[in-house]
């Protein structure tokens, strides 16, 4: 059903996910070494057929290749949304840079938020290979016409939230993104390989924050549990609506953009977290969470998808604040960008004015 993409056994840790990223990187190189299927010069090749053949052979579609318009549009939408999520996602964590409780934690958090800006930059660059400009995409974000991940519309109320974001939100992001390392569009797959490596590092740091808190003072333990209680369901909702309601799934799977369904990935995430929560000494806020022997997976309570839809449509706790902050940064920085352009234009004019 998923082409050559057999699910790799998961040992339930981000380490196992990292192995999958590395396997994807090896597969990417191997595909490049194999070479693409050739076209037969004797027959008038239909570009659609060649595109389908490339996907079938697990080769990557590259920017100059012909591709169906709908494939291009789907990718632009998905990569842009992913890039926007990195940028908006800097805010909830950035909220704690000034108050991080130790200098080491402050340094780690600064580095993490910096990485997220870097991920946003890689992803905008990947989107630009599809013939759209970063400026256009940022306009669409600021106008509310393109989305970002629903999770970043929740507030970070305590320091433990920084840990919960690392463990749960970055954990969910990796589970979602590891299969994208094998996505059929080359620039996106390559960006995801780089991003997943850094994300798994962030996830481990978040886990470490929670572990320290959970084994600290009673107040710190309570802070960690409260954060997990608040971030659990929003993190489950990150995988999107249940399979029956997901509009983009089938076509995206056929194109090998998406390789597993929302529900499959959500299940994988739940199974991973249950084991880790045990080591943390924290509980997941779901009384019906239990191992199901016959499914060899955990049964769990689904998130409230009506809430997910409300948050996606703009009525979550922080939607207005997040966009207002982004718009303000954009507006306040306009004179700086104009100055840089004017300066560059003057230097360019000087160069052309030099007599030959």
């Amino acid at each position, binding site marked *: 059903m998923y082409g050559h993409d057999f699910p790799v056994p998961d040992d339930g840790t981000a380490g196992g996910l990292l192995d999958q990223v590395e396997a994807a990187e090896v597969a990417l190189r191997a595909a490049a070494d194999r070479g693409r299927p050739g076209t037969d010069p004797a027959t008038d090749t239909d570009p659609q057929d060649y595109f389908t053949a490339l996907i079938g052979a697990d080769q990557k579609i590259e920017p100059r290749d012909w591709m169906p318009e709908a494939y291009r549009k789907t990718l632009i939408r998905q990569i842009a949304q992913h890039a926007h999520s990195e*940028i908006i996602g*800097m*805010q909830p964590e*950035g909220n704690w*840079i*000034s*108050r*991080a*409780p*130790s*200098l*080491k*934690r*402050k*340094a780690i958090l*600064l*580095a993490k*938020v*910096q990485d997220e*800006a*870097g991920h*946003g*930059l890689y992803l*905008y660059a990947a989107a630009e290979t599809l013939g759209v400009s970063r400026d256009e995409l940022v306009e669409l974000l600021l106008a509310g016409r393109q989305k970002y991940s629903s999770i970043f519309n929740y507030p970070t109320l305590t*320091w433990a939230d920084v840990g919960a974001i690392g463990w749960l939100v970055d954990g969910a992001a990796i589970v979602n993104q590891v299969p994208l390392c094998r996505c059929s569009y080359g620039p996106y797959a390559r960006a995801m390989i780089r991003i997943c490596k850094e994300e798994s590092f962030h996830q481990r740091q978040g886990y470490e*924050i929670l572990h*320290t*808190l959970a084994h*600290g*003072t009673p*107040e*710190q333990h309570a802070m960690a549990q409260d954060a997990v209680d608040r971030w659990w369901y929003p993190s489950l909702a990150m995988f999107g609506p249940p399979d029956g309601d997901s509009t983009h799934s089938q076509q995206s799977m056929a194109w090998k953009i998406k390789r597993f369904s929302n529900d499959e990935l959500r299940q994988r995430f739940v199974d991973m977290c249950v084991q880790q929560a045990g080591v943390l000494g924290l509980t997941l806020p779901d009384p019906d969470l239990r191992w199901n022997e016959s499914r060899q997976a955990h049964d769990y309570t689904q998130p409230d998808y009506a809430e997910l839809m409300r948050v996606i449509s703009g009525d979550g706790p922080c939607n207005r604040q997040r966009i207002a*902050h982004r718009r*303000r*940064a954009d507006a*306040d*920085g*306009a*004179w*700086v*960008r*104009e*100055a*840089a352009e*004017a*300066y560059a234009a*003057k230097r360019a004019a000087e160069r052309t004015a030099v007599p030959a």
Partner: protein
Amino acid sequence: MNTTGAPVHTTVDYLLGLGDDALVAAQRLGEWVTAAPELEEDVALANIALDQLGAARLLLSYAGELEGVGRDEDALAFLRTDREYRNCLLVELPNGDFAMTMAKLLFLSAYQLPLYTALSGCADERLAAIAGKARKEVAYHLDHAGLWTVRLGDGTEESHRRMRAAVEELWPYTGELFVADPAAPVDPAGLRAAFLANVEPVLETATLPRPADGWGPTGGRAGLHTEHLSYLLAEMQVLHRAHPGARW
């Protein structure tokens, strides 16, 4: 008292001055993250903040060891009051607009570069090693701030006006950086010529006049700060102080 065998002229107060400059500068730069004019600048400012924070940690750890009463970098960062901080006034001033931040960074890095360069050859090997590492990072900070000062100064009318105002407003705070301290491993008074050699060509290329020397507030090294530092520390220390003795 001095059990580490370090040369006597490296005092705890001197290290606190260096470390606090870097820490407070990092705290202010960190405020920019998510609010910079460009994504690239979010990355750059976070990067510079991280470098300053890294230097601060090494310097404060050393200060704590030299002091010998069991204070580590976190005890020094989170449990001293504004009257005990030893940073120069320049770094604690609010960020203001992007021009103000770049002027602050230009002056700070133009001072730190010759300072760390001189310290990297000083007799205190521990301090020399810290300075040797920090010097390479600060050279990048100076380059970054210099390029922006030139772009803004020689950009649009609006950016020129803002950059000029920033340089004029902050110039008086550079005096404090060079107050003589003959007992220090490197006497700050001897660094002013190198500072001017770093700053004046940038201002000239940026088409900005070099402000005249006049009023020059001091006091930071003695713990006599502006009204801004207490708020900065209140925010930075709030969580750490709320959980005495906790590990993070």
